[in-house]
């Protein structure tokens, strides 16, 4: 599936020959899709996203992914932007990670892991 030009215009986005995004693991597709939806919901503009991602990639030298993969940087940039925008409050993501970790450890293998929320 081809991406709209505006969306494809982020730094060094891996694309296939048809202009579709390329992922090397399922979670990468998930975080990519979440970023698109959060943008569509008006959390941030796409240029804001491109700038945040670019800054994160720049922290890793040339961003060639030798130390970390492209989507590792993407994930970090997404977390940062959500904090800047006040969507993720202090400690909120860390608390949720802890809750998910506990849920996973309490789930026998092969069962779906679910987070119990009030």
């Amino acid at each position: 599936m081809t991406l709209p030009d505006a969306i494809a215009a982020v730094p060094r986005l891996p694309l296939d020959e048809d202009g579709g995004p390329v992922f090397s693991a399922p979670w990468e597709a998930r975080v990519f899709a979440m970023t698109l939806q959060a943008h569509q919901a008006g959390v941030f503009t796409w240029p804001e996203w491109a700038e945040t991602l670019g800054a994160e990639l720049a922290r890793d030298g040339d961003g060639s992914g030798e130390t970390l993969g492209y989507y590792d940087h993407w994930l970090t940039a997404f977390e940062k932007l959500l904090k800047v925008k006040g969507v993720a409050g202090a400690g909120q993501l860390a608390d949720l990670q802890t809750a998910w970790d506990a849920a996973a450890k309490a789930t026998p293998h092969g069962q779906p892991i679910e987070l119990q929320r009030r």
Partner: protein
Amino acid sequence: MSGHDHSHDHDHSELSDIELRVRALETLLTEKGYIDPPALDELIETYETKIGPKNGARVVARAWADPDYRDRLMKDATAAIAEFGFTGRQGEHMVAVENDETTHNMVVCTLCSCYPWTVLGLPPVWYKSPPYRSRAVRDPRGVLDEFGVHLPEEKEIRVWDSTAEVRYLVIPERPHGTHGWSEDRLAELVTRDSMIGTGLALDPAKRETAA
């Protein structure tokens, strides 16, 4: 989850740091109403062919074309698949299960981390759904019917439940009328579903007319 399973016979589940971060984000954004999980699944599904089942299809095609390779694959699938340079990040152990005249194999597991995505690409959304897993174990023939796969009554269906350590790759039966085909041509007949066991390899006769 059931909440009262204190059995220590089964390993508990484990999510990697990355998976924890992704799930935390998804929970937060869902609760704040910025994302909608069903729409998210739909969006992902449009991309799920992009890692593509092509890696697995090449493995299957070679197993069909080269008996020595097939033997290596059945003996040690991890090593045979690594011959192509496809290796999992977590070093998971691959096992090949082969369909034949008497047996059909299919694979289940609800955790997407238990899906051999290095060979099969992104898991389809239905694969992760609880109904698929429970029904595939209880009523595999019924599930196959819904996928449009109607097997003769006498054919045995084996269901393989992936574990954290072992991922399965189904080697579908080689279609008739493909004698002497090259691996590239054969690989085009191998669908993702045929390697999960919820489909069969494409029939070249039907494919000609469809094309």
